[in-house]
């Protein structure tokens, strides 16, 4: 709408001023001609020219007057020539008394002071231009008015509903801040910017709620998990303080240092999981052949497995390209191998572990499998949670953070950890996006 107004204004100024200029040029030329004739032939010299031109109805208008202002020649009769400033442009309306001209038309003219006090007005009927100008101005005004009205109307309606929706978002956030964490931003369904904003706010709220839920669970579990060793440590210290036996006291202190180390390890694992979930390390991931890490870690664990009458087999080829960090991959693998060694002894007593790597569709799949008791189907998701240990495992060292750590590493790398049945035993599979 605004652009129409701009175009019209341009047309207006450009065309009108061009037309007006042309008229003025014509008048000026006429004035020059007539003044020359006057200089040569005096009043008589121009009288004839004026009479001849005014014989027919035309666009040019003239008036020759004597020094007192009385009409001598020309079709313009009604002009109060004395009250018009000398040697200047002026506009006037043609009267019915004027001859051979259309009354009520607008005219544009020049008033010349001739030598000896005679006066001459040369003018032109500019009604056409005036009408044209008015028409353009008219449409311009209308256009502008229309634009303003429509703009205001639509704008008000729009900003009303906009404000109403912003208000409801504000209200909802207020409610959430007051503790109603499950509340969500309203969505109008139009899919506009506000809806997109509401969507991403809701996604954020979902994530926060999930994290907070996790935190609550963790703090509960941490409190519980700390209580047992702390109670034990406290009892041991009290005992040592009461006794006199130096050797026994020393033993108690050593035991406590050992327990402290375990607690620290628990905290470190928890912190690692938290950091992984925060996802900061995602920026420093690089292309890595997981094969090298598999081989490394297998080599690191092989002697230990052999010591336990077990074996570790590596079934993989180079080229398992993933976006990761060697350290993180190794950490995930050592946790899985650690579990396999702890829980994966088969019925005949040996622990037979297979570490394999393959490319499956768009994923690199790395698996660690054993032939132990495995994890019952119903517990396979649960064991990925922090501090979850199955009853049969309580006799073995550990605090139930291993699989959580592996799972959060997999998530950080854009993949997932899947626990499967190895018939018999457990197969832990890391599905990570292939990056080759």
């Amino acid at each position, binding site marked *: 709408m605004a652009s129409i107004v701009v175009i019209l204004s341009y047309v207006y100024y450009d065309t009108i001023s061009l037309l007006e200029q042309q008229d003025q040029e014509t008048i000026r030329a006429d004035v020059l001609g007539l003044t020359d004739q006057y200089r040569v032939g005096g009043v008589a010299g121009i009288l004839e020219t004026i009479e001849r031109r005014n014989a027919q109805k035309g666009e040019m208008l003239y008036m020759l007057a004597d020094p007192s202002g009385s009409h001598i020649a020309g079709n313009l009769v009604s002009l109060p020539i004395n009250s018009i400033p000398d040697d200047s442009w002026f506009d006037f309306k043609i009267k019915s008394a004027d001859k051979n001209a259309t009354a009520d038309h607008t005219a544009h003219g020049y008033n010349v002071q001739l030598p000896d006090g005679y006066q001459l007005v040369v003018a032109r009927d500019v009604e056409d231009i005036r009408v044209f100008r008015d028409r353009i101005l008219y449409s311009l005004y209308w256009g502008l008015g229309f634009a303003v009205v429509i703009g205001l109307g639509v704008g008000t309606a729009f900003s009303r509903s906009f404000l109403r929706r912003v208000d409801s978002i504000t209200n909802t956030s207020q409610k959430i801040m007051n503790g109603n964490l499950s509340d969500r931003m309203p969505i109008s369904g139009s899919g506009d910017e506000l809806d997109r904003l509401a969507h991403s706010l809701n996604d954020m709220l979902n994530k926060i709620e999930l994290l907070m839920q996790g935190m609550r669970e963790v703090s509960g579990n941490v409190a519980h998990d700390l209580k047992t060793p702390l109670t034990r440590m406290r009892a041991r210290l009290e005992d040592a303080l009461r006794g006199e036996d130096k*050797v026994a006291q*020393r033993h108690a202190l*050593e035991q406590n*240092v050992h327990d402290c*180390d375990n607690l*620290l*390890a628990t905290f*470190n694992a928890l*912190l*690692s999981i938290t*950091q992984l979930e925060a996802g900061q*390390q995602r920026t*420093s991931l690089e292309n890595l052949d997981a094969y090298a890490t598999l081989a*490394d870690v297998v*080599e*690191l*664990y092989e*002697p*230990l497995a052999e*010591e336990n009458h077990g074996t570790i087999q590596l079934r993989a080829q180079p080229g398992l390209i993933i976006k990761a*960090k060697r*350290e993180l991959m*190794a*950490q995930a693998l*050592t*946790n899985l191998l*650690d579990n396999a*060694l*702890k829980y994966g002894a088969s019925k005949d007593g040996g622990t037979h572990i297979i570490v394999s790597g393959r490319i499956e569709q768009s994923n690199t799949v790395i698996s660690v499998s054993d032939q132990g008791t495995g994890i019952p189907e119903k517990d396979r998701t649960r064991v990925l949670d922090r501090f979850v240990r199955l009853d049969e495992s309580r006799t073995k*060292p*550990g605090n139930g953070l*291993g699989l959580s750590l592996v799972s959060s590493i997999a998530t950080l790398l854009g993949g997932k950890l899947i626990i499967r049945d190895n018939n018999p035993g457990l197969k832990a599979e890391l599905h990570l996006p292939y990056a080759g």
Partner: protein
Amino acid sequence: MQPQKNETNADLTGDVWAGTGNYMRILIIEDDKDAASWLMKGLKESGHIVDLASDGELGFAVANEGRHDVLIVDRMLPKVDGLTIISQLRSNGHKTPILILSALSDVDERVKGLRAGGDDYLAKPYSFSELLARVEGLGARKLLDPKDAKLKAADLELDLLTRTVTRDGKPIVLQPREFKLLEYLVRNAGHIVTRTMLLENVWDYHFDPQTNVIDVHVSRLRGKLDKGFAEPLLQTVRGAGYMIRAR
């Protein structure tokens, strides 16, 4: 936690401090008073001369005099940050070995520390025996020329070019990783090397696997080294780590 002399019972730090014999001048730059005095006490009892600076500015000034054999620098310090001190010292041309202490344990932080010019990085909380082993290892490091093609400890000889090992002239066949492990132990001969140091330097892992995988590797190596010899060369220092006899 501090080691006591003349104790018949093996304590946690064992005879950590007794191993080295020659003392070092150590500068601790650490603002935590408790941690600093605990460190100072332990290091002094281990026979070292210890100075303490409690902020970065003072720490840098003292370290810049170049009178110390090893610097222990806390990562986060008031006034001037630990890493800034280190990179400034390095650009001033100081080569003093530096151990960085930090509450930040993740690998990226570690890399930053080493890039700034630190020689070793220890995450808090750490045990005193771990710290002492690393400090003494750093102090001894400058005695060895890394370009030497042959390393010796007692009657053991490693040829780094041919990757062969002999003890008392008799060849010992080692796997590549075992060779690397032995090389690290021999470079630190006469000093205690902790399990974590081995994991970091021989395997390049900077996390703690739950199970102690290192012990099995070391005992296999020991089996090969000491088989047929009356005097054991590779010793276990209870509660601390391992050590290869220098003589």
